[in-house]
């Protein structure tokens, strides 16, 4: 019931603002509907962290890991809506966009959130596939939201690459269905039900499941942004409106990864070992750390910098997932830490873009003086993203490095080197960006100063949650909850 209500509330978010007449009413309806989605996600997810049993029926399945994802989606869509109200309000005021565009924006945001939640709560791998493809279809027009140069290119690349990837994932789904139905284990819709497959996983033919997983990893991995299937990600994240970039980076990538992790449990069950899938995770994870390092070092665009950093962090999460139980703990902590930090950074980048009208480093400077609140929050979040304590990413990276040094020392060295390069790249670019007195573009007339607004409150909430999450990890309450989450994905 709660899950159905949650999905309906997303449809309310999509439709009610669409039929409102004035800007204030559109924003009011969007805020109320989005708050409703957040409240329902809390109501649905929180009990599972405190011992409530997993919920399952023919259509929905919610375990602790899915509950964590629901919570992340619920919270980040809420803060993204708050930021969007500020962001779109400014753009309507300056004449950049008109009222119908605002209606369209919230319509697609609602459908996007709904499809992400469907991906997570579906008990059927077929419906999960449909919902994951729907996340691409609902966000493509958001990537192409502006009539700016490059928006169409980014959206086209996003649509073609992600849809091709997800379609290849369908081959993996066919193979899984065949593996379950041909051996007489399951039939019909039940043959792609996740809970059914879980019970028969040890009897599934390992050879077929391995081939299926390769297609799933390549297909869904395209959506996660794993190297070498990542080409769409920097373009889409940099061209979309900043609150959308925050949602794409913070929760959509994780929703796709969720699909891979679900399949992995089946393949591991079929092989009676996690060695094979772990090796694939280690290779793809390591590649996804190395390649962005080079692009981050020489980056000229701050939104693309954040996008490449997302590829790197998804790589770290996948790499951790290949390091056994300790690695799984690191990957769960990293999923939460990265989602909170990166989405807030994109919200901050939106404030900077509104003021400077450019995403290029050479056209932006003195952010700390021009936008003191945004600048301070942005700097703190960058430090959090770079795993400076008390960031939860410090804990996850420490865990993953210490575990990989023991299990795979060469891989550990390569990842450490990539992390060092990325750290240097960020510091080299962000410090002048925030503090330099270099003149910005001569044509621009940038006003100095800002008032604390709702977008700052949203970003600050992310920051507070990041610190609170670190503190929570040090309490005795953390280990049973983490244990429940890890059990759900191993």
């Amino acid at each position, binding site marked *: 019931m709660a899950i159905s209500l949650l999905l309906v509330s997303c449809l309310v978010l999509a439709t009610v603002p669409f039929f409102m007449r004035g800007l204030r009413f559109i924003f009011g309806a969007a805020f109320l509907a989005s708050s409703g989605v957040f409240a329902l996600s809390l109501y649905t997810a929180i009990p599972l962290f405190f011992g409530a049993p997993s919920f399952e029926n023919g259509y929905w399945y919610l375990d602790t890991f899915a509950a964590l994802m629901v919570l992340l989606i619920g919270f980040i869509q809420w803060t993204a809506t708050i930021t969007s109200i500020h962001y779109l309000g400014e753009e309507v005021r300056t004449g950049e966009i008109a009222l119908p565009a605002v209606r369209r924006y919230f319509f697609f945001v609602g459908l996007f959130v709904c499809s992400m939640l469907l991906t997570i709560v579906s008990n059927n791998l*077929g419906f999960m596939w449909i919902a994951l493809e729907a996340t691409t*279809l609902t966000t493509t027009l958001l990537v192409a939201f502006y009539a700016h140069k490059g928006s169409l290119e980014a959206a086209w690349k996003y*649509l*073609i690459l992600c849809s091709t990837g997800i379609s290849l994932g369908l081959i993996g789904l*066919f193979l899984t*269905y065949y593996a379950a139905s041909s051996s007489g284990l399951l039939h019909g819709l039940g043959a*792609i039900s996740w809970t059914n497959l879980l019970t028969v996983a040890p009897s599934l033919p390992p050879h077929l499941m391995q081939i299926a997983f390769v297609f799933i990893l390549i297909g869904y991995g395209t959506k996660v942004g794993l190297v070498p299937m990542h080409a769409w990600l920097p373009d889409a994240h940099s*061209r979309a409106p900043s609150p959308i970039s925050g949602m794409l980076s913070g929760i959509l990538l994780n929703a796709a990864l969720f699909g891979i992790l679900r399949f992995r449990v089946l393949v591991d069950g079929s092989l009676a070992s996690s060695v094979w899938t772990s090796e694939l995770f280690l290779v793809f994870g390591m590649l996804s750390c190395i390649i962005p390092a080079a692009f981050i070092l020489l980056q000229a665009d701050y939104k*693309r910098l954040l996008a490449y950093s997302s590829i790197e962090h998804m790589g770290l999460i996948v790499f951790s997932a290949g390091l056994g139980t300790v690695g799984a703990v690191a990957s769960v902590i990293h999923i939460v830490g990265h989602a909170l930090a990166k989405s807030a950074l994109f919200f901050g980048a939106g404030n900077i873009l509104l003021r400077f009208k450019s995403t290029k480093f050479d056209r932006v400077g003195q952010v700390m003086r021009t936008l003191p609140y945004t600048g301070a929050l942005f700097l703190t979040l960058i430090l959090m993203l770079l795993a400076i304590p008390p960031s939860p990413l410090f804990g996850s990276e420490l865990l993953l490095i210490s575990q990989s040094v023991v299990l795979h020392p060469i891989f550990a060295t390569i990842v450490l080197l990539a992390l060092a390069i990325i750290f240097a790249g960020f510091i080299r670019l962000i410090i002048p960006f925030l503090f330099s007195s270099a003149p910005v573009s001569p044509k621009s007339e940038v006003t100095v100063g800002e008032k604390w607004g709702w977008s700052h409150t949203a970003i600050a909430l992310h920051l507070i949650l990041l610190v609170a999450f670190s503190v929570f990890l040090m309490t005795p309450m953390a280990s049973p909850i983490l244990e429940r989450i890890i059990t759900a994905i191993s």
Partner: protein
Amino acid sequence: MTPIATAMTVFAGGMFFLAFLMSSRMRLGSLVTAFRVQSALLALLAIAAAFVTGEFQLFIVAGLIVLIKVWFIPSFLLRAARVSGASERLQSYARPATLSFVAACLAIVALIGARGLLPVGADYFVLAASFGIVLVGLLMLVSRKDMFGEGIGFFVMENGIFTFGLALTHGMPFLFEIGSFFDLLAFFILITVFTHRAQDENASVATDDLRTLTD
């Protein structure tokens, strides 16, 4: 081999042959016609699978294929091209002869891949044909320099995946089929929206004009 199994092999073979021809076609009209016929063969394949399994819902799936892939997508694709004033002549990175040669090589890869990968009960030639169609669809996606060519390449690949699904499973659960058709329709609508916008912005649907975002 039963007559239905023979028919399925002939339909899948015909679909691959059409994909092979499409890989080097440079006119929108002939590409769309070939796609129409290929989709009709896919519908016949679904009907054949319905006779094999006795599943009535596969007849509905065949009907949906005719409705969406034989009629709706080709007709509206041509209409979108006409309305936006896009050129009938399509572009490619390679010459037609080169593309035909690569497509032939992909057919060999598909034949080897189908033999090595799957120790399953499905007909070998139907599986090989489906692999071939997927690979030629991917070839069209990477070799074409315009939105229509890339879009049709995607649909060809999707036909190949559907053929693979029919050969392997004789049809997925009906609800899933309906959902995937819905996604396909939404994808098609987005393709037409973008071709229209590209024509408005760049007076062309060439993807060469979409190469500004680089690092």
